[in-house]
Protein backbone atom coordinates (compact mmCIF):
# COMPACT_ATOMS: atom_id res chain seq x y z
CA UNK A 1 0.00 0.00 0.00
CA UNK A 2 1.34 3.35 -0.99
CA UNK A 3 -0.02 5.25 1.97
CA UNK A 4 1.30 2.71 4.47
CA UNK A 5 4.77 2.90 2.98
CA UNK A 6 4.55 6.66 3.03
CA UNK A 7 3.72 6.72 6.72
CA UNK A 8 6.35 4.10 7.46
CA UNK A 9 8.92 6.23 5.66
CA UNK A 10 8.03 9.23 7.75
CA UNK A 11 8.08 7.23 10.95
CA UNK A 12 11.49 5.75 10.16
CA UNK A 13 12.87 9.13 9.20
CA UNK A 14 11.67 10.89 12.32
CA UNK A 15 12.92 8.04 14.47
CA UNK A 16 16.40 8.20 12.98
CA UNK A 17 16.49 11.95 13.54
CA UNK A 18 15.37 11.59 17.14
CA UNK A 19 18.07 8.99 17.78
CA UNK A 20 20.67 11.50 16.65
CA UNK A 21 19.13 14.28 18.72
CA UNK A 22 19.08 12.01 21.72
CA UNK A 23 22.81 11.50 21.36
CA UNK A 24 23.64 15.17 21.00
CA UNK A 25 21.20 15.97 23.78
CA UNK A 26 23.10 13.58 26.00
CA UNK A 27 26.35 15.41 25.39
CA UNK A 28 24.65 18.76 25.84
CA UNK A 29 23.61 17.81 29.34
CA UNK A 30 26.65 15.75 30.37
CA UNK A 31 29.44 18.23 30.75
CA UNK A 32 31.78 15.73 32.33
CA UNK A 33 32.35 14.28 28.85
CA UNK A 34 34.05 17.50 27.73
CA UNK A 35 37.57 16.77 26.62
CA UNK A 36 38.90 20.27 26.05
CA UNK A 37 42.20 21.04 27.70
CA UNK A 38 42.78 24.60 28.82
CA UNK A 39 46.20 24.82 27.27
CA UNK A 40 48.04 27.84 28.55
CA UNK A 41 46.59 27.38 32.04
CA UNK A 42 47.56 23.74 32.30
CA UNK A 43 51.06 24.33 31.05
CA UNK A 44 52.53 23.30 34.37
CA UNK A 45 50.63 20.02 34.54
CA UNK A 46 51.45 19.13 30.95
CA UNK A 47 53.13 15.79 31.04
CA UNK A 48 54.87 15.06 27.80
CA UNK A 49 56.22 11.55 27.31
CA UNK A 50 59.96 11.29 27.55
CA UNK A 51 60.23 10.11 23.95
CA UNK A 52 58.44 13.13 22.55
CA UNK A 53 60.64 14.83 20.00
CA UNK A 54 60.52 18.59 20.32
CA UNK A 55 63.98 19.79 19.43
CA UNK A 56 67.57 18.64 19.47
CA UNK A 57 69.57 19.67 22.50
CA UNK A 58 73.06 18.89 23.69
CA UNK A 59 73.36 17.70 27.27
CA UNK A 60 75.79 19.55 29.46
CA UNK A 61 76.76 18.44 32.94
CA UNK A 62 77.36 20.72 35.92
CA UNK A 63 80.95 21.42 34.87
CA UNK A 64 79.67 22.74 31.54
CA UNK A 65 81.05 19.73 29.74
CA UNK A 66 79.43 17.88 26.88
CA UNK A 67 80.13 14.65 25.05
CA UNK A 68 80.32 15.93 21.49
CA UNK A 69 83.56 15.11 19.75
CA UNK A 70 82.67 16.87 16.53
CA UNK A 71 82.66 13.69 14.44
CA UNK A 72 79.78 15.10 12.30
CA UNK A 73 77.95 11.77 12.15
CA UNK A 74 74.77 13.66 12.91
CA UNK A 75 75.43 16.11 10.12
CA UNK A 76 75.72 13.23 7.66
CA UNK A 77 72.65 11.48 8.99
CA UNK A 78 70.40 14.50 8.74
CA UNK A 79 68.10 14.36 5.70
CA UNK A 80 67.63 18.11 5.33
CA UNK A 81 70.86 19.77 6.34
CA UNK A 82 69.59 20.87 9.71
CA UNK A 83 72.89 20.41 11.51
CA UNK A 84 76.15 22.11 10.68
CA UNK A 85 79.25 21.37 12.71
CA UNK A 86 82.18 23.75 12.76
CA UNK A 87 85.35 22.26 14.18
CA UNK A 88 88.43 23.83 15.59
CA UNK A 89 91.78 22.40 16.68
CA UNK A 90 92.57 22.41 20.35
CA UNK A 91 96.08 22.09 21.64
CA UNK A 92 96.09 19.39 24.25
CA UNK A 93 98.35 19.69 27.34
CA UNK A 94 100.84 17.36 25.71
CA UNK A 95 101.14 19.80 22.83
CA UNK A 96 99.25 17.67 20.32
CA UNK A 97 96.67 19.17 18.00
CA UNK A 98 93.24 17.72 18.66
CA UNK A 99 90.02 18.14 16.75
CA UNK A 100 87.22 19.56 18.86
CA UNK A 101 83.90 21.21 18.31
CA UNK A 102 83.72 24.93 17.91
CA UNK A 103 80.07 25.49 17.08
CA UNK A 104 77.23 23.04 16.76
CA UNK A 105 74.75 24.92 14.56
CA UNK A 106 71.20 23.65 14.62
CA UNK A 107 68.50 25.02 12.32
CA UNK A 108 65.27 24.33 14.14
CA UNK A 109 63.24 25.70 11.25
CA UNK A 110 64.53 22.94 8.96
CA UNK A 111 64.26 20.11 11.45
CA UNK A 112 61.64 17.39 10.92
CA UNK A 113 62.32 15.72 14.29
CA UNK A 114 63.15 12.41 12.66
CA UNK A 115 65.58 11.38 15.40
CA UNK A 116 68.22 10.18 12.93
CA UNK A 117 70.96 12.41 14.33
CA UNK A 118 70.36 11.16 17.86
CA UNK A 119 70.49 7.59 16.56
CA UNK A 120 73.67 8.30 14.69
CA UNK A 121 75.55 9.98 17.54
CA UNK A 122 78.25 7.58 18.78
CA UNK A 123 78.77 9.33 22.13
CA UNK A 124 75.19 10.20 23.06
CA UNK A 125 75.98 13.88 23.13
CA UNK A 126 72.68 15.07 21.70
CA UNK A 127 69.17 14.13 22.58
CA UNK A 128 65.62 15.16 21.89
CA UNK A 129 64.04 17.62 24.30
CA UNK A 130 60.34 17.75 25.07
CA UNK A 131 59.89 21.47 24.46
CA UNK A 132 57.31 22.32 21.86
CA UNK A 133 56.63 26.04 22.15
CA UNK A 134 58.99 27.14 19.44
CA UNK A 135 57.27 30.28 18.19
CA UNK A 136 59.49 33.32 17.97
CA UNK A 137 59.11 36.71 16.36
CA UNK A 138 62.40 36.56 14.49
CA UNK A 139 63.29 33.67 12.28
CA UNK A 140 66.94 34.15 13.08
CA UNK A 141 66.28 32.97 16.62
CA UNK A 142 65.51 29.51 15.29
CA UNK A 143 69.12 28.98 14.30
CA UNK A 144 70.69 27.80 17.49
CA UNK A 145 74.12 26.99 18.82
CA UNK A 146 73.78 23.81 20.83
CA UNK A 147 77.10 23.75 22.67
CA UNK A 148 77.07 26.30 25.42
CA UNK A 149 79.70 29.00 25.31
CA UNK A 150 82.86 28.01 27.12
CA UNK A 151 81.88 24.35 27.29
CA UNK A 152 84.39 21.65 26.60
CA UNK A 153 84.54 17.97 25.91
CA UNK A 154 83.97 15.66 28.82
CA UNK A 155 87.08 13.76 29.83
CA UNK A 156 87.18 10.19 28.62
CA UNK A 157 84.89 10.64 25.65
CA UNK A 158 86.54 9.72 22.40
Amino acid at each position, binding site marked *: MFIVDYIKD*IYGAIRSLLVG*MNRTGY*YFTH*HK*EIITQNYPENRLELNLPERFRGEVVMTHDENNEHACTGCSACELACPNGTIKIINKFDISPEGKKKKAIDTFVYHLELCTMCNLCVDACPTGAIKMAQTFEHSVYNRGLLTKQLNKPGSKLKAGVE
Partner: protein
Amino acid sequence: MFSLESITTIVQNWLTKTFSPNLALFFEFVIVGVLAIALFAALGLVLVLMERKVAAWIQIRLGPNRVGPKGILQSLADTVKLIMKEGLTPDGSDKFLFNLAPFIVMMVAMLALAPIGFSKGFHIWDINIGVLYVSAISSVSVIGILMAGWASNNKYSLLGAMRSGAQMVSYELSVGLCILSIIVLTGSLSLNDIVLSQQNGWWLFKGHIPAIISFVIFIIAVTAETNRAPFDLSEAESELTAGFHTEYSGMKFALFFLAEYINIFIVCAIGATLFLGGWMPFHLGTWEGFNHIMDYIPSFIWFFGKTFFLIFVIMWFRWTFPRLRVDQLLNLEWKYLLPISMVNLVIMTLVAIQGWHF
Protein backbone atom coordinates in the same frame (compact mmCIF):
# COMPACT_ATOMS: atom_id res chain seq x y z
CA MET B 1 2.29 40.82 40.09
CA PHE B 2 4.94 42.52 38.02
CA SER B 3 3.82 43.46 34.56
CA LEU B 4 5.32 45.51 31.74
CA GLU B 5 1.84 46.80 30.93
CA SER B 6 1.88 49.19 33.88
CA ILE B 7 5.17 50.73 32.71
CA THR B 8 3.84 51.34 29.23
CA THR B 9 0.67 52.89 30.64
CA ILE B 10 2.66 55.25 32.87
CA VAL B 11 4.86 56.37 30.00
CA GLN B 12 1.86 56.77 27.72
CA ASN B 13 -0.06 58.85 30.26
CA TRP B 14 2.91 61.07 31.01
CA LEU B 15 3.62 61.71 27.34
CA THR B 16 0.04 62.59 26.46
CA LYS B 17 -0.22 64.84 29.50
CA THR B 18 3.03 66.71 28.84
CA PHE B 19 3.06 67.09 25.06
CA SER B 20 0.61 67.66 22.29
CA PRO B 21 -0.84 64.44 20.83
CA ASN B 22 1.31 64.58 17.69
CA LEU B 23 4.49 65.18 19.60
CA ALA B 24 3.58 62.43 22.04
CA LEU B 25 3.11 60.02 19.15
CA PHE B 26 6.49 61.05 17.77
CA PHE B 27 8.19 60.44 21.10
CA GLU B 28 6.50 57.07 21.31
CA PHE B 29 7.90 56.22 17.89
CA VAL B 30 11.37 57.25 19.01
CA ILE B 31 11.11 55.20 22.19
CA VAL B 32 9.86 52.17 20.28
CA GLY B 33 12.61 52.52 17.71
CA VAL B 34 15.30 52.79 20.32
CA LEU B 35 13.88 49.85 22.21
CA ALA B 36 13.67 47.75 19.04
CA ILE B 37 17.26 48.50 18.13
CA ALA B 38 18.37 47.81 21.69
CA LEU B 39 16.50 44.52 21.60
CA PHE B 40 18.20 43.67 18.33
CA ALA B 41 21.64 44.36 19.69
CA ALA B 42 20.95 42.45 22.88
CA LEU B 43 19.42 39.51 21.01
CA GLY B 44 22.30 39.37 18.59
CA LEU B 45 24.82 39.23 21.39
CA VAL B 46 22.87 36.70 23.44
CA LEU B 47 21.93 34.42 20.57
CA VAL B 48 25.42 34.28 19.11
CA LEU B 49 26.85 33.39 22.47
CA MET B 50 24.07 30.88 23.05
CA GLU B 51 24.68 29.26 19.70
CA ARG B 52 28.36 28.94 20.39
CA LYS B 53 27.81 27.50 23.83
CA VAL B 54 25.19 25.04 22.64
CA ALA B 55 27.46 23.97 19.80
CA ALA B 56 30.40 23.60 22.15
CA TRP B 57 28.58 21.49 24.70
CA ILE B 58 27.13 19.23 22.05
CA GLN B 59 30.58 18.89 20.55
CA ILE B 60 32.15 18.05 23.91
CA ARG B 61 34.04 21.33 23.95
CA LEU B 62 34.05 24.21 26.38
CA GLY B 63 33.14 26.92 23.94
CA PRO B 64 34.08 30.57 24.35
CA ASN B 65 35.75 30.94 27.72
CA ARG B 66 38.44 33.60 27.31
CA VAL B 67 36.77 37.00 26.92
CA GLY B 68 35.15 38.05 30.15
CA PRO B 69 33.98 35.71 32.88
CA LYS B 70 33.07 32.33 31.33
CA GLY B 71 33.39 33.98 27.93
CA ILE B 72 30.19 36.00 28.13
CA LEU B 73 31.81 39.00 26.46
CA GLN B 74 32.87 36.94 23.48
CA SER B 75 30.14 38.12 21.15
CA LEU B 76 30.78 41.72 22.18
CA ALA B 77 34.40 41.27 21.19
CA ASP B 78 33.29 39.75 17.90
CA THR B 79 31.05 42.73 17.26
CA VAL B 80 33.90 45.13 17.88
CA LYS B 81 36.05 43.13 15.51
CA LEU B 82 33.38 43.21 12.80
CA ILE B 83 32.87 46.93 13.18
CA MET B 84 36.59 47.59 12.89
CA LYS B 85 36.89 45.49 9.75
CA GLU B 86 36.95 47.07 6.35
CA GLY B 87 33.75 46.59 4.41
CA LEU B 88 34.92 45.51 1.01
CA THR B 89 32.93 45.99 -2.16
CA PRO B 90 34.27 43.68 -4.85
CA ASP B 91 35.19 44.90 -8.29
CA GLY B 92 32.54 44.32 -10.89
CA SER B 93 29.76 44.12 -8.37
CA ASP B 94 26.61 46.19 -8.57
CA LYS B 95 27.66 48.58 -5.86
CA PHE B 96 24.26 50.03 -5.04
CA LEU B 97 22.48 46.72 -4.73
CA PHE B 98 25.46 45.14 -3.02
CA ASN B 99 25.37 47.72 -0.26
CA LEU B 100 21.59 47.82 -0.11
CA ALA B 101 21.04 44.09 0.34
CA PRO B 102 22.14 43.73 3.98
CA PHE B 103 19.93 46.66 4.96
CA ILE B 104 16.89 45.13 3.26
CA VAL B 105 17.42 41.89 5.10
CA MET B 106 17.86 43.78 8.32
CA MET B 107 14.83 46.02 7.79
CA VAL B 108 12.63 43.04 7.07
CA ALA B 109 13.71 41.48 10.31
CA MET B 110 12.93 44.72 12.14
CA LEU B 111 9.51 45.16 10.54
CA ALA B 112 8.43 41.65 11.40
CA LEU B 113 8.94 42.49 15.04
CA ALA B 114 5.99 44.89 15.15
CA PRO B 115 2.96 42.72 15.99
CA ILE B 116 4.68 40.33 18.38
CA GLY B 117 3.37 40.50 21.92
CA PHE B 118 6.32 40.34 24.26
CA SER B 119 4.30 40.52 27.39
CA LYS B 120 0.79 41.16 28.53
CA GLY B 121 -0.27 44.38 26.79
CA PHE B 122 3.24 45.01 25.52
CA HIS B 123 3.52 45.07 21.77
CA ILE B 124 4.59 47.64 19.28
CA TRP B 125 1.49 47.44 17.12
CA ASP B 126 -1.49 45.25 17.90
CA ILE B 127 -2.58 44.96 14.31
CA ASN B 128 -5.65 42.84 13.66
CA ILE B 129 -4.01 41.00 10.74
CA GLY B 130 -0.82 40.35 12.68
CA VAL B 131 -0.19 36.83 11.42
CA LEU B 132 -0.77 37.83 7.84
CA TYR B 133 1.51 40.80 8.28
CA VAL B 134 4.37 38.70 9.63
CA SER B 135 4.16 36.10 6.89
CA ALA B 136 3.94 38.80 4.23
CA ILE B 137 6.90 40.74 5.57
CA SER B 138 9.12 37.73 6.15
CA SER B 139 8.89 36.72 2.49
CA VAL B 140 10.51 40.02 1.53
CA SER B 141 13.80 38.92 3.00
CA VAL B 142 14.33 36.56 0.08
CA ILE B 143 14.62 39.65 -2.10
CA GLY B 144 17.47 40.89 0.02
CA ILE B 145 19.24 37.58 -0.29
CA LEU B 146 18.71 37.35 -4.02
CA MET B 147 19.96 40.90 -4.32
CA ALA B 148 23.08 40.06 -2.34
CA GLY B 149 23.77 36.99 -4.42
CA TRP B 150 23.22 38.75 -7.71
CA ALA B 151 25.09 41.92 -6.93
CA SER B 152 28.18 40.18 -5.57
CA ASN B 153 29.36 39.18 -9.05
CA ASN B 154 30.37 35.82 -7.65
CA LYS B 155 29.15 32.46 -8.86
CA TYR B 156 29.04 30.96 -5.42
CA SER B 157 26.88 33.84 -4.23
CA LEU B 158 24.60 33.50 -7.20
CA LEU B 159 24.12 29.78 -6.68
CA GLY B 160 23.48 30.34 -3.00
CA ALA B 161 20.94 33.04 -3.66
CA MET B 162 19.12 30.92 -6.24
CA ARG B 163 18.95 28.03 -3.84
CA SER B 164 17.70 30.35 -1.15
CA GLY B 165 15.00 31.71 -3.43
CA ALA B 166 13.67 28.28 -4.33
CA GLN B 167 13.83 27.20 -0.72
CA MET B 168 12.09 30.18 0.87
CA VAL B 169 9.32 30.39 -1.69
CA SER B 170 8.40 26.75 -1.26
CA TYR B 171 8.67 26.53 2.49
CA GLU B 172 6.52 29.58 2.97
CA LEU B 173 3.59 27.44 1.84
CA SER B 174 3.75 24.95 4.63
CA VAL B 175 4.47 27.66 7.19
CA GLY B 176 1.32 29.41 5.99
CA LEU B 177 -0.75 26.23 6.17
CA CYS B 178 0.47 25.49 9.68
CA ILE B 179 -0.40 28.98 10.80
CA LEU B 180 -3.80 28.61 9.15
CA SER B 181 -4.57 25.52 11.15
CA ILE B 182 -4.31 27.61 14.31
CA ILE B 183 -6.21 30.52 12.76
CA VAL B 184 -9.01 28.06 12.07
CA LEU B 185 -9.23 27.39 15.77
CA THR B 186 -8.98 30.96 17.00
CA GLY B 187 -10.88 32.68 14.24
CA SER B 188 -8.66 35.74 14.50
CA LEU B 189 -5.53 36.93 12.75
CA SER B 190 -4.50 39.19 15.59
CA LEU B 191 -1.63 37.79 17.58
CA ASN B 192 -3.06 39.26 20.76
CA ASP B 193 -6.36 37.46 20.26
CA ILE B 194 -4.54 34.23 19.56
CA VAL B 195 -2.68 34.55 22.85
CA LEU B 196 -5.85 35.38 24.74
CA SER B 197 -7.62 32.37 23.24
CA GLN B 198 -5.10 30.15 25.01
CA GLN B 199 -6.16 31.26 28.46
CA ASN B 200 -7.25 27.78 29.46
CA GLY B 201 -4.45 25.85 27.78
CA TRP B 202 -2.08 26.10 24.86
CA TRP B 203 -3.20 25.15 21.39
CA LEU B 204 -0.47 22.54 21.21
CA PHE B 205 -2.31 20.61 23.92
CA LYS B 206 -5.84 21.70 23.15
CA GLY B 207 -5.76 20.95 19.47
CA HIS B 208 -5.14 17.20 19.71
CA ILE B 209 -2.80 15.45 17.29
CA PRO B 210 -3.39 17.82 14.32
CA ALA B 211 -1.95 20.67 16.36
CA ILE B 212 1.11 18.63 17.25
CA ILE B 213 1.62 17.70 13.62
CA SER B 214 1.32 21.27 12.48
CA PHE B 215 3.70 22.34 15.27
CA VAL B 216 6.35 19.86 14.06
CA ILE B 217 5.90 20.92 10.46
CA PHE B 218 6.02 24.54 11.50
CA ILE B 219 9.34 24.06 13.27
CA ILE B 220 10.83 22.21 10.31
CA ALA B 221 9.56 24.75 7.82
CA VAL B 222 10.71 27.81 9.72
CA THR B 223 14.13 26.23 10.12
CA ALA B 224 14.23 26.04 6.36
CA GLU B 225 12.82 29.51 5.93
CA THR B 226 15.48 31.08 8.09
CA ASN B 227 18.21 29.20 6.16
CA ARG B 228 19.37 27.31 9.20
CA ALA B 229 21.13 23.95 9.08
CA PRO B 230 20.13 21.31 8.06
CA PHE B 231 18.56 23.56 5.42
CA ASP B 232 21.41 26.05 5.13
CA LEU B 233 21.82 25.39 1.45
CA SER B 234 22.18 29.04 0.61
CA GLU B 235 25.35 29.24 2.68
CA ALA B 236 26.35 25.55 2.52
CA GLU B 237 29.84 26.03 3.83
CA SER B 238 31.34 22.88 2.36
CA GLU B 239 29.76 23.39 -1.03
CA LEU B 240 29.53 27.11 -1.70
CA THR B 241 32.07 28.39 0.85
CA ALA B 242 29.60 30.92 2.28
CA GLY B 243 26.86 31.15 -0.31
CA PHE B 244 25.19 34.48 -0.79
CA HIS B 245 27.38 36.37 1.68
CA THR B 246 30.72 35.10 0.35
CA GLU B 247 31.82 38.57 -0.69
CA TYR B 248 30.57 40.43 2.35
CA SER B 249 32.84 41.50 5.14
CA GLY B 250 32.86 43.73 8.16
CA MET B 251 29.63 45.37 9.26
CA LYS B 252 27.72 44.40 6.14
CA PHE B 253 28.39 40.76 6.90
CA ALA B 254 27.46 41.41 10.51
CA LEU B 255 24.07 42.69 9.40
CA PHE B 256 23.38 39.45 7.53
CA PHE B 257 24.57 37.53 10.52
CA LEU B 258 22.42 39.55 12.89
CA ALA B 259 19.40 39.34 10.61
CA GLU B 260 19.71 35.56 10.61
CA TYR B 261 19.48 35.46 14.38
CA ILE B 262 16.70 38.03 14.55
CA ASN B 263 14.74 36.01 12.02
CA ILE B 264 15.14 32.94 14.16
CA PHE B 265 13.93 34.89 17.12
CA ILE B 266 10.89 36.16 15.23
CA VAL B 267 9.83 32.81 13.83
CA CYS B 268 10.31 31.21 17.23
CA ALA B 269 8.29 34.00 18.82
CA ILE B 270 5.51 33.39 16.29
CA GLY B 271 5.73 29.68 16.97
CA ALA B 272 5.57 30.28 20.69
CA THR B 273 2.62 32.62 20.26
CA LEU B 274 0.63 30.29 18.04
CA PHE B 275 1.29 26.96 19.66
CA LEU B 276 2.65 27.61 23.12
CA GLY B 277 0.48 30.52 24.18
CA GLY B 278 2.88 33.43 23.79
CA TRP B 279 3.12 35.28 27.09
CA MET B 280 0.23 33.28 28.51
CA PRO B 281 1.30 31.31 31.58
CA PHE B 282 0.90 27.56 31.64
CA HIS B 283 -2.72 26.99 32.60
CA LEU B 284 -4.37 23.68 33.19
CA GLY B 285 -8.12 23.81 32.57
CA THR B 286 -9.89 24.47 35.88
CA TRP B 287 -7.07 23.92 38.37
CA GLU B 288 -7.43 27.38 39.94
CA GLY B 289 -4.61 27.02 42.49
CA PHE B 290 -2.10 25.81 39.94
CA ASN B 291 -3.09 28.54 37.50
CA HIS B 292 -2.61 31.20 40.19
CA ILE B 293 0.89 30.02 40.95
CA MET B 294 1.72 30.09 37.26
CA ASP B 295 0.32 33.62 36.99
CA TYR B 296 2.88 34.86 39.50
CA ILE B 297 5.64 34.31 36.98
CA PRO B 298 5.80 37.51 34.89
CA SER B 299 4.38 37.14 31.44
CA PHE B 300 7.50 38.32 29.61
CA ILE B 301 9.45 35.53 31.27
CA TRP B 302 6.93 33.06 29.88
CA PHE B 303 7.28 34.56 26.45
CA PHE B 304 11.07 34.63 26.37
CA GLY B 305 11.29 31.22 27.98
CA LYS B 306 9.15 29.62 25.31
CA THR B 307 10.86 31.49 22.50
CA PHE B 308 14.32 30.57 23.71
CA PHE B 309 13.28 26.98 24.10
CA LEU B 310 12.26 26.90 20.46
CA ILE B 311 15.48 28.65 19.47
CA PHE B 312 17.38 26.00 21.39
CA VAL B 313 15.52 23.27 19.51
CA ILE B 314 16.49 24.87 16.21
CA MET B 315 20.09 25.10 17.34
CA TRP B 316 19.92 21.50 18.43
CA PHE B 317 18.87 20.59 14.88
CA ARG B 318 21.75 22.53 13.47
CA TRP B 319 24.42 20.80 15.48
CA THR B 320 23.02 17.31 14.97
CA PHE B 321 22.04 16.88 11.36
CA PRO B 322 23.89 16.86 8.08
CA ARG B 323 22.73 19.17 5.33
CA LEU B 324 20.16 18.16 2.75
CA ARG B 325 20.84 18.29 -0.94
CA VAL B 326 19.00 20.89 -2.94
CA ASP B 327 16.64 18.50 -4.70
CA GLN B 328 15.97 16.60 -1.48
CA LEU B 329 15.10 19.87 0.18
CA LEU B 330 12.41 20.56 -2.38
CA ASN B 331 11.28 16.93 -2.28
CA LEU B 332 10.80 17.18 1.44
CA GLU B 333 8.61 20.24 1.01
CA TRP B 334 6.52 19.21 -1.96
CA LYS B 335 6.24 15.50 -1.28
CA TYR B 336 6.00 15.41 2.46
CA LEU B 337 5.44 18.64 4.34
CA LEU B 338 2.92 20.25 2.00
CA PRO B 339 0.57 17.27 1.53
CA ILE B 340 0.68 16.45 5.20
CA SER B 341 -0.04 19.99 6.27
CA MET B 342 -2.88 20.24 3.75
CA VAL B 343 -4.52 17.08 5.07
CA ASN B 344 -3.80 18.29 8.53
CA LEU B 345 -5.55 21.59 7.83
CA VAL B 346 -8.64 19.75 6.67
CA ILE B 347 -8.68 17.64 9.81
CA MET B 348 -8.13 20.74 11.90
CA THR B 349 -11.04 22.49 10.24
CA LEU B 350 -13.20 19.48 11.03
CA VAL B 351 -12.04 19.62 14.64
CA ALA B 352 -12.79 23.33 14.84
CA ILE B 353 -16.23 23.03 13.25
CA GLN B 354 -17.24 20.10 15.41
CA GLY B 355 -15.74 21.76 18.47
CA TRP B 356 -13.75 18.65 19.40
CA HIS B 357 -10.91 20.70 20.79
CA PHE B 358 -10.82 21.49 24.47
